[in-house]
């Protein structure tokens, strides 16, 4: 069965989106300097601010859809990740290709008791965006046990 992420991830994503405002403000600050110092036209700054608003609003508006489409599924042979609000992307990671599983938590995720589960193969790294700390540890153990079994079968 495909599992959904915990609902608290939506709040974490919202905060993450608000943090992007900071970077946009840095950019707009630079544009403002250019307007003052090199007499760039004013609309450059307004364009920057407009792009910031548009980006943040779209990102916030998409969070419920992003949440609704995010699924992960672990079968005995593979891990499947499905994500994306506008473009839905499904990735199949065979258990036997998995090299290691890393648990990672940014300060925002930690504040909500969440952890990201990174699944690495010899050339790719995919991520389950955030699950509760207990689930993360259980997923890691489950995937690594399956991977060990897959390797034993091959040997």
């Amino acid at each position, binding site marked *: 069965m495909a599992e959904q992420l915990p609902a608290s991830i939506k709040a974490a994503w919202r905060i993450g989106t608000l943090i992007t405002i900071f970077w946009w403000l840095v950019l707009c600050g630079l544009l403002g300097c250019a307007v003052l110092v090199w007499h760039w036209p004013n609309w450059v700054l307004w364009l920057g601010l407009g792009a910031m608003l548009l980006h943040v609003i779209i990102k916030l508006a998409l969070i419920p859809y992003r949440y609704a489409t995010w699924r992960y599924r672990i*079968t005995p042979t593979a891990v499947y990740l499905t994500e994306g609000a*506008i*473009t*839905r*992307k499904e990735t*199949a990671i*065979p258990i036997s290709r998995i090299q290691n599983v890393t648990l990672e938590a940014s300060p925002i995720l930690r504040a909500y008791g969440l952890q990201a589960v990174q699944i690495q193969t010899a*050339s790719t790294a*995919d991520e389950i965006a955030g699950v509760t700390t207990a689930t993360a540890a259980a997923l890691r153990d489950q995937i690594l046990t399956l991977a060990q079994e897959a390797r034993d079968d091959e040997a």
Partner: protein
Amino acid sequence: MKPSRLHPLALVLMIGGSLIKYSPVFIFGFWRDFAHGTLNQEDVLSTAALLAIVAGLIALASLVRYWRFRYTLGTSGITIESGLWRKQSTHIPYANIQTLQRQQWFFLQPFGLERLSIETAGKADKKAEATLAAVPTRVAVAIEAHRHPDQPVTPTAADAPDHTYTADAHALNLYALTSLGVIPIITGLLWLVNKADDLAPKAWVASVEATLAHLALALTLGLAVLVLVLGMGLSYLNLWQKYYRFTLTATGETLTTTRGLLARNTVSVRTQRIQAVRAKASILRQWCHLTTVQGLTASRAADDESDDDLVLMPVVTTAKVLATMQPFIAWLPATMPPLTRPVATTRWRFARNAAMGYAIVAGLALVASWLWWPPGRLWVTGGAGLLLVLGTAQGAYAARQTGVAVLDTNRIVAQSGHWFAQETFFIRRATVQTVSRAQSLWMAPLGLTHLTLNLRKGNGNEAVTLKYLNAATVTAVMTWFQPHDSH
């Protein structure tokens, strides 16, 4: 086994290599004085003294590196010790070696020396795991013997290879002639000609210009022709010497390529370690029915420092690719299967997407010219239009190259087009790392899906992406990849 040092000639090579690496510093140093026009003797002398100190330091660093470097061929692997302050000891088990590259410059031949690069699948470093700058050729023979304990331990030269392919002179000629490598060379030459004006001493330029003013047009034309001919000649000679007497041999499970006039390059790799085989043809070579065959390996510098891919056949007639390659790589299909391609009615999407990419660049250029460069508006508008046409053509080309075919439970063939070049990948299921499919909201009702196969290539990932395939085709590939799960 006792640790051995590199051959003393290695020191010369190390110093030479470092000097070449830092040569821009030297060139810049002198050019600055020279271009100022006033050739002040004091300035030149002080620059020369400064550069001599830099050269001395470089030589000293090489000396320390040479002095601290030791290698040991053990029973299970090769051990390399190096470093003055930060001592390093690297152990590479023979079984982990992905590719072994031997490079013998012509001046090393009389001494029976060569450079060895040993590559594993380790992801840690950008550089080769181990490079032995100059060692006797018997070192490589010994390593090869350790790598294949199952094969009789005799000098490899005495081993009769199972299959041999030699690129004939005619094929090589065509390869060099159809190379697009001439474009960067010509660009470089044009830049030089353009810059020569700024960099040559002012007085000299003025006198030349005065004498030749009335010949300006003839001179410009002559210069353009000269640049073209010179560029093509350089590109041709470079490729010709690079692939001079190219041979591919198969001995047991090992493929070995040998090539090169000035530097003889030998690369060996186990067939099982080849992640995928790629047949590549630029649009120019497609017109001539020529294809290049490369092997994707899980180690960097398989072939060249700038290229991860091991060239298995520099050039072969497109119709004969599989027939020629199959004796070397048994899992390749004997004939090209029919590919499932995106339906004709979706080809315009490729063209639109490519044109859109160019449109952003063109749009920015237009805005910039409108604001800051009014006299150039016409030119920029024309250029932007050309760019859009180019993008559309590129997309339309890519659409026609896209296709996929599942051969059997273990093999798949994927074809795509990039930058006016067709790439056909022959892939085994066992070397596909992950597969993903993507579908936007508006693609869903049309039943269109993008497919990506991720392969290990060099130290990174090679994503083979096929766009706008039928959803059913993509589901079939997902099922091929993971037959036990529902898709």
